């Protein structure tokens, strides 16, 4: 294996893994903040119990997100030093700003929130978790701006003297048209994911025999708020995703053609729900198609022409010359791996739609104090958290694989981005180390998560402060 392959595997594994925890963090921080605010507004203790219950689960998830995030930032320099040299002037800025604006905010106010229950006034305490959420949004904005620049480079000039892309318009970078639609798409997907987690956990608790009336009311509230958030954000995900598809057709037409495995230009172009083809994706054996849908997704018009892979190859060759990495990529010039692009696109959409449908069903089934008891709906609820979660993963796999062979679209191919001085052995060692450690941590995390999910929301401890101990001697409200 050559170091580029290993470095790509490492990036794929560490990034997909990291991004299992990120959407839950973004979504759940908002929901926990919402519950705490609801408690402050209504004084009803069930909201406090939900705050603490999901707050605990949030922290179990957040911890892994944070520690695996460090790898993300270091990895560019370690494995992709030529990429870092080439784009640092423009790509480094949003990363630095992310650290300064987002990471400090998240970490400091999360510390205050975790340990501050008895030291901060209630409103200030709730403000802390809102600030954590704001931090996650800042973080998402700047890292997505950096990624959007890789999809559609703007606000830069290539400097032949230094041999690198140099920034000349920071505002263009921040308000890249790809970014403006990617940010809502990703953040709303994250809300969907966090909410699906809440629905799954709360629904399971709701249908347990042990739950008493008050608990049932509380979990029903959680199920219904979660399902409602899923539906609203799901709608936003669909709309933003649709706009994204049209922008993608404009700026990265090959990605759209690869998403449908559309070899020859068609007008109108259909969208296949299911296709069996040869493994390299070069030939189609069987497929179920919806006529005109691809045309609609790409151009907003069911009769529009969608340019196919073969024509695009010609175009790309004229624009960029012969693909410098052609021998490296399957199946050929300027084309990403078709089966992976094709299926990840469908799985993203399919899982997202399934999640929204399941949320609608659960919302309907729990109306007017009903507690549905069927097996089907229970299993749906248990599977539910994974639907938007994996939709997120496939969305990223699609967007990153679909950009290949480019690391930065039109500017730098991935095989040129890798660190020239790092040996195969070094990259391999780190790939193995991260994969083993991450796998091990996943087992620990999931077990811990299940333990605390099973335990459910604790009752509120109403122990009055004892008179003989003065305030400074009381045990901490929370301690590690």
């Amino acid at each position, binding site marked *: 294996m050559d170091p580029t392959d290993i470095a790509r595997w490492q990036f794929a594994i560490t990034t997909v893994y990291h991004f299992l925890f990120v959407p839950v963090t973004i979504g759940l921080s908002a929901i926990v903040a919402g519950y705490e605010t609801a408690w402050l507004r209504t004084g009803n203790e069930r909201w406090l119990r939900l705050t603490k219950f999901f707050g605990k689960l949030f922290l179990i998830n957040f911890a892994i997100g944070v520690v695996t995030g460090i790898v993300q930032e270091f990895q560019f320099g370690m494995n992709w030093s030529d990429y870092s040299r080439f784009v640092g002037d423009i790509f480094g800025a949003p990363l630095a700003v992310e650290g300064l604006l987002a990471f400090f905010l998240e970490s400091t106010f999360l510390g205050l929130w975790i340990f501050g229950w008895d030291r901060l006034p209630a409103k200030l305490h709730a403000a802390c978790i809102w600030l954590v959420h704001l931090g996650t949004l800042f973080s998402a904005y700047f890292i997505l701006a950096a990624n959007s620049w890789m999809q559609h480079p703007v606000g830069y000039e290539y400097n032949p003297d230094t041999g690198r892309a140099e920034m000349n318009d920071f505002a263009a970078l921040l308000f890249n048209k790809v970014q403006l639609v990617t940010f809502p798409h990703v953040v709303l997907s994250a809300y969907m994911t966090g909410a699906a987690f809440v629905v799954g956990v709360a629904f399971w608790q709701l249908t347990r025999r042990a739950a008493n009336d008050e608990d049932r009311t509380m979990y029903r509230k959680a199920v219904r708020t979660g399902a409602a958030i899923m539906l609203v954000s799901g709608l936003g995900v669909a709309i933003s995703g649709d706009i994204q598809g049209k922008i993608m057709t404009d700026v990265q037409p090959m990605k759209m053609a690869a998403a449908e495995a559309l070899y020859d230009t068609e007008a109108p172009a259909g969208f296949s729900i299911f296709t069996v083809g040869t493994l390299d994706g070069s030939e189609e054996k069987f497929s179920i198609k919806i006529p005109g849908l691809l045309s609609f997704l790409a151009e907003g018009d069911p009769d529009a022409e969608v340019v196919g892979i073969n024509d695009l190859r010609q175009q790309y060759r004229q624009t960029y010359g012969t693909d410098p990495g052609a021998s490296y990529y399957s199946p050929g010039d300027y084309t990403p791996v078709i089966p992976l692009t094709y299926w990840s696109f469908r799985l993203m959409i399919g899982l997202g739609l399934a999640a929204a449908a399941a949320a609608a069903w659960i919302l309907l089934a729990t109306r007017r104090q009903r507690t549905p008891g069927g097996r089907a709906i229970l299993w749906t609820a248990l599977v539910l958290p994974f639907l938007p979660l994996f939709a997120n993963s496939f969305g990223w796999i699609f967007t990153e694989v679909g950009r290949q062979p480019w690391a930065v679209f039109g500017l730098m191919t991935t095989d040129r981005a890798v660190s020239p001085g790092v040996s195969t052995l070094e990259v391999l060692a780190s790939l193995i180390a991260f994969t083993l450690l991450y796998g091990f941590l996943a087992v620990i995390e999931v077990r811990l998560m299940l333990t*605390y999910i099973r335990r459910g929301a604790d009752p509120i401890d109403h122990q009055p402060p004892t008179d003989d101990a003065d305030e400074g001697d009381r045990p901490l409200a929370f301690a590690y």
Partner: protein
Amino acid sequence: MELTTVWFILIAVLWVGYFCLEGFDFGVGMLLPVLAKNDTERRVLINTIGPVWDGNEVWLLVAGGATFAAFPEWYATLFSGFYLPLLLILLALIVRGLAFEYRAKRDDASWKRNWDLAIIIGSFVPALLWGVAFANILRGVPIDADLEYVGGFFNLLNPYALLGGATTLLLFLTHGAMFISLKTDGRIRIDAGRLAVRLGAAAALVTVLFLGWTQIKTGTVASAVAFALAAVALLTGLYAARLGREGWGFLGTFVAIALGVAGLFLGLFPDVMPTSLSDGVSLTTSNAAATHYTLTIMTVVAVIFTPLVLAYQAWSYWVFRKRIAVHHIPESTAVVSGA
């Protein structure tokens, strides 16, 4: 002042902040088996840094990000060149960070023991390797004419660099002991104060050796002043700790680390990564830098947001200013058995 110089200073400040802050939480982590005799005492130690360690670590992330943005060549050469030490640091920071959050989640002796080990090793490895890495940067490493590191791993293990590692290790241990004596009460407080003085004596010796060696190799007048003041601060801190003045003791190690790191950067300037090859090219604040435009944007962002960050981070330290003693540790509410 040139913007490249401004950013060199800002990155130095970020590393100073990182070592002064995470330095003590590394120390606390490493002292877990030394100063705590039972689980409650271990929890006392961990809870002194519980609310703040993550914020401390962000200084590293921002230093990394700022280097990427302001000196892309430096970031690229350093991170790809010091590959294995950075890998070890990353692995250490991962298990350590997780340990703080997960350790208390199960009331189970072997679970806690394993996470304690993660905290101890996860604090030890970076405390040692950051010193090794910085000493190598100062010493100069093989960087060829393409600004690429060509030295391999074992090149990084030389006597000067190992002395650098011993210096950060001992300084952080002392700094951690000072912090514990400042933030706890009861037996741990007394033991930590005594230990700080003893560790501090060893740290002072190694620090003087390392900084002296550095001064001879790459020093300037400015770095000499910084190093001298760092030594004074360290000795003053130790003296204060001996007298039981814990706040002054902690301030002493804090200032000593700050001035020591500042002196290293003063000795480095205007290089950021000198080459040890005769036909190689050193990375400097000019040939490694981003464009004027990028540096201007970044300066504006830093000027607006850095004071804000400093303010709220300082406030969080104020909120958690109280000492923690054994009787403050609540009984564990964690689950007892496995899943």
